[in-house]
């Protein structure tokens, strides 16, 4: 079987790199954690990998706005190398701050098959507070290469700027119509979510989206924090699951890298 090689990006303030690498390895990938300064010196390093992950954290302190400075760096310095990765069928995953980075860099929602790109952003939570809590999500895995048949998953969120906003209703319709709204916050019984089930006030409860190709995926919740049953907040109440809901995301990615 072909080796699935994943580049896990490091940068000042990125802090979920260890556990993101661990999650990919658990799913069968081989990972390298590489500092952005090395990639800036030599963007060709990316050519050795089949996928790139931008982990959670506070890149450059999230100064100015979350993901802004690292997003600018990806766009200006690594943009070509990342587009090349996508061109040969590679995957890009952005978790939490990584999603913010991908959004601010323009890789998400990404280029449209026709017409102008959708203008989207992730901004301050409506509560004006950073919050760590578990959320339920409905899954639409039709387009994304990171998801499969799952219909509902639970993961934790931990962020202060996760409110997904686009500049028009039409853009929202387009994202949904194209099956690019991959994850949506719902209540425990699957209904429409208000705060706190929608933890940040995102439009239409959007928690994660993919680009038009399905190769780029960004989500605010942390799949790498739910790999094992005992990471769930009510695991002591049973019945026990065999694995955490987050693991499947890494497994789908690895499977799709190999095929």
């Amino acid at each position, binding site marked *: 079987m072909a080796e699935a090689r994943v580049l896990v990006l490091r940068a*000042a303030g990125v802090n979920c790199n260890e556990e993101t690498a661990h999650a990919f390895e658990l799913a069968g990938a081989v990972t390298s954690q590489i500092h952005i300064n090395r990639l800036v010196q030599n963007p060709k390093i990316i050519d050795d990998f089949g996928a790139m992950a931008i982990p959670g954290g506070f890149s450059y*302190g999230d100064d100015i706005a979350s993901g802004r400075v690292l997003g600018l760096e990806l766009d200006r310095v690594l943009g070509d190398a990342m587009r090349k990765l996508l061109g040969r069928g590679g995957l890009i995953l952005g978790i939490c701050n990584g999603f913010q980075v991908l959004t601010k860099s323009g890789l998400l929602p990404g280029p449209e098959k026709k017409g102008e790109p959708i203008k989207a952003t992730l901004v301050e939570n409506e509560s004006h507070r950073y919050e760590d809590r578990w959320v339920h999500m409905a899954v639409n895995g039709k387009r994304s290469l990171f998801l499969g048949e799952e219909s509902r998953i639970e993961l934790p969120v*931990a962020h202060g700027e996760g409110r997904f906003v686009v500049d028009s209703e039409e853009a929202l319709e387009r994202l949904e119509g194209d099956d690019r709204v991959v994850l949506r916050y719902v209540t425990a019984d699957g209904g429409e979510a208000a705060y706190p089930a929608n933890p940040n006030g995102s439009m239409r409860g959007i928690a994660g989206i993919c680009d038009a190709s399905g190769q780029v995926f960004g989500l605010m919740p942390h799949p790498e924090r739910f790999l094992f049953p005992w990471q769930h907040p009510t695991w002591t109440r049973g019945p026990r699951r065999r694995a955490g809901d987050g693991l499947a995301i890494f497994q789908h990615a690895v499977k799709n890298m190999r095929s």
Partner: protein
Amino acid sequence: MLWHFEIRARDGHRDPFAHEIERELPWLGLEKAGPVKLARLYLLGGEFDRDAAISLGGSLLLDPVIQDLELKSLEEADQEADKVVTVCRKAGVTDPVEESLRRGAARLGLELDEIRTGFHFSFEGEVDRAELERIGARLLATAVVDEILVGRSALPAHKTPAGSKSERREIELPADDEALLGLSREMGLALNLEEMQVIRAHFHELERDPTDIELETLAQTWSEHCKHKTFSARIDCDGKIYDNLIKQTIFKATRDLDRDFCVSVFKDNAGIIRFDDENNLCFKVETHNHPSAIEPYGGAGTGLGGVIRDILGTGLGAKPIANVDVFCVGDLEAETEDLPQGVIHPLRVLKGVVSGVRDYGNRMGIPTVSGAVFFDRRYTGNPLVYAGSIGIIPRDRCEKVVHAGDKIVALGGRTGRDGIHGATFSSMELHEDSESVDGGAVQIGNAITEKRCMDVLLAARDRGLYRSVTDCGAGGFSSAVGEMGEEVGARVELSSAPTKYPGLSYTEIWISEAQERMVVAVPPEKLDELLELAASEDVETCVLGEFSGTGKLEIFWQGEQVADLDMEFLHDGLPKTTMKATWSPPPRDDLREFVPPMAGEALRALLADPNIASKEWIIRQYDHEVQSTSVIKPLVGVTAAGPSDGAVNAPVLGSTKGYAVGLGLCPHYADIDPYHMARAAIDEALRNVVAVGGDPDRCAILDNFSWGNTQKPDRLGALVRASEGCYDAAMALRLPFISGKDSLNNEYATSRGTIVIPHTLLVSALAIVDDVRQSVSMDLKRGGTSVYVVGLTRRELGGSAYLRLNGHRGNDVPQLPDNALSIHRRMHEAIRDGFVLSCHDCSEGGIGVAGAEMAFSGGLGLEIDLGRVPISGPRMRDDELLFSESLCRYLVEVDSRSAARFEALFEDLPCAPIGHSLAEEKFRIRGRNGAVMLEEPLADLGRIHRQSLTAILEGEVRG
């Protein structure tokens, strides 16, 4: 050219920050001042024109989906404006955004030579200038670190702080004692007469005068903060003589117990214990009380930053894996006019310290797993902030050594004028002018600088690039280099240290407590590799000098020697003082007139008490799951409403071996007897780890004392009693202390007298959990199960939450029973063997509160029959039985399959089934006569517990 960028939310997009200020305006009685509009401001300068500035703003500063940008020249922007307040950091105070702006601009091909960031707030309602000044100082900014410009619409351009002269200066020590003491005060040395006399004699012998930097170095090294003079003083306590209090109590317990899992105790920056075959764990808790009193956000953030550096500076550097934080603050609902002058309102203190810990801990990527908040009016002027950190370190990286010839290398942040005299400041009493006089002691941290430094340090550790490491904490380079070079001596050239701005004197560089700096001892052959590694991740380094082999501390400034101190005198020259201590019990509280309230009302009041109510509003702002190690989280149960006793984490990814952390804090018992307070705090910390699955036989504890002025014999007497309590409880429970710290002089002087904080001892416990899958949580799991109480209930309501809420202190403080260790061990066995569905320790509010919490957290009813509770001692009323805070007790849920084995395990110990879970959502208590004395709907109890503190913090309740 200077460009002023103003960024505002586009119409139709609400700005949550502006909204929060609108919500807070009523606190000042100024609700009419809103609505509030705000703009984020950037003043950026460089060799670029308007077009380039527009492009910079559009690419770096603006979110085009929700914001609009206005670009002005500084002249255009700088207008007088009614109803506007502009806020920015004072010159010289760290603004972390500057560095990111510089980096972002560089990616766009622009170089910035001027950067300033801030906000302006416009008030569209009715408000006058004086009111704006109040809003500015109370809601928008902190005068110590922020510039608040009322009626101006632009950021001011930077002014470089004035430089100090930096020429070698000798100080003549006056022969007259009074003048000598005056000199200590004038220079802010915080040295007493006896110490100054020893210094005078020393230099007399050397036949020269000391230089300014030599005196400052001695003052830092000999400060209470660094030397713990009180704890090691000779103390006469009511005729009983202690030659060294800490060695005779805290240290003695550790030595007498001699537990084999202790690796390093009381000698490094944190205590170290065994974890698994490859790793050890280390744990340290620090206080940052005085800085947090003056600037809660910066004080708490840098407090946490400091203790994280302690972990990085333990052994050859441990990786921080969890943080804990404990705050003690005044009454959140106090009326502003009732507060002593110069004091920040407790609500703002609490919000500030929570934000400070949140912003630092979250950015570092370290989960905040456990904590506590404690309220008492006596903390109003002198709040307490405890910050702790746990680290993991490979077993072969726990020892450090310095060789002569090793280079002294500083890593991390630059040195500025921030935090000068922090060590000596923390050793003095706070007063009404502390805010204006001592502002330099407070600073704002930059977590990302520390994160970068941590990444490089741990990589360098793994590559073996240095032989020793320590952090720059109190006393800055002075303490770090002084400690590392204690055995071999050090030679330092201070002009090689990079500074934040020009003009620092050599003494300022030497004693600055600027954050985010570590010092390492590097073998010369590894120097290049270390410097290269640091540079590759944008971590600044400097070679300050070398460890010399001369046994002296030699400091140079631009080639000229400014200090030549004997290490031996510096570290061992401090004279031992003799102090008087006394303790007598307080007068008895007369309870004859006490009429017990209705039990249901009492329970509701207890659950609403901020000390007991849910801390969810705070907990959720901390990332408690980063690093993916969380197993038992701070909030548990069906809807995460349950306050977990302790936290369990599995720190090695892929392994199920873990640890539990728990805290013990019961200052109100100290109002009756500090001896029993200390024993209770230790028992509580142990209960909190055992209740979630921690092994009491592989558990270590930390002591953190926050006390009043121990120059006063009564405060010192209380400290002696508490220390004795620590020794006795540690021996009884076989718990070694592995690290500790004390913060004395926590008093607040007002014109109406001095307010002394309660005697506050925080005990933190760290216990091994062999397999985290065996840990349990406190929420009831199923209907039809039995609930047992383990341990005896006595009439011990002295200092209890129940009596306090009813206006009494009480007399009978909880005492540690003789069979405590057996109970904790057996409880652990029961959990480990899988007999236990849920377990909750009984602490504040006793069986009543613990039972209610288990029930609403599990979404299951519970009925308890008080007649079945095993008791000891004098007869009790039902309310006493329900709310007594006797130690060493657990409520335990057991199902019918395990009941027989569970009971057999406790055959020779007090344990009885006292109730059972119900499908019906009610919490019901039967008195000893069998009649129902309390029956409350679970939903009500849960709501009261969950919302009471949150409502205050959200501003929905206005005291």
